[in-house]
């Protein structure tokens, strides 16, 4: 399998508050708050459809890949009730479904081979695409350089 050997800068975002329709401000400076997140580019496919390029948040706190239900419906995934609910960070259990997807990491003609993944689809909520540990963190050595807002992903090689 062809894993990727890439580096990414963190995605920069300025967020508009839903209620005020104005940028959320940095409390110290009073200027629009810039936030950086470790997103990576990817494409998600089912047997029926393939997404446009999207971005998944690398999340070492998640066991696996999570996608929102509306994306699962767009991909026409066959959703099966999971045998176990998803336990979220505060200890609550959340009903979820599971389905096989193909995850391809990259953008602009530079892609990994597709990786077959069992994705979790929460019954409620609207998460981003979350790229948790299985299988992406198992297949790569991932280095977060938080001070420089960048990360590197290299194919894992046993030493």
């Amino acid at each position, binding site marked *: 399998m062809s894993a990727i*050997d*890439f*580096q*990414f*800068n*963190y*995605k*920069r*975002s*300025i*967020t*508009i*508050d*839903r209620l005020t*329709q104005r*940028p*959320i401000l940095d409390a110290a400076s009073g200027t629009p*708050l*810039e*936030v*950086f*997140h470790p*997103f*990576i*580019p990817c494409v998600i496919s089912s047997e029926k459809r393939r*997404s*446009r*390029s*999207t*971005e998944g*948040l690398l*999340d070492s*706190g*998640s066991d696996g890949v*999570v996608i*929102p239900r*509306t*994306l699962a*419906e*767009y991909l026409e995934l066959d959703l099966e009730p999971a045998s176990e609910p*998803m336990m*979220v*960070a505060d200890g609550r259990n*959340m009903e979820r479904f599971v389905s096989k997807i193909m995850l391809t990491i*990259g*953008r*602009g003609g*530079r892609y990994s081979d597709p990786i077959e993944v069992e994705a979790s689809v*929460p019954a409620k909520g*609207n*998460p*981003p*695409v*979350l790229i948790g540990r299985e299988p992406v963190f198992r297949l790569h050595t991932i280095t977060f350089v938080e001070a*420089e*807002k*960048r990360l*590197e*992903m*290299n194919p894992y090689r046993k030493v």
Partner: protein
Amino acid sequence: MVSPPMKKHGPEYIEMGSVTGIAGQWVVVVKDKVVASSDDAGEMFRLAEKYPEEDTVVTKILHPRASFY
């Protein structure tokens, strides 16, 4: 603050860019401009099919204090 310059050595580098949008919404970005937004990811992926694949990204605007599962 501007995103720090990337080191161009080593592995191939992919620029992730920047985006401005409403907290929690999904957006369609075409040539670095947000052309649509919605709470419904599926709606945004369907809309994105109308734009050239190489110019188009669908992403989510995270709230600065968001935490997930």
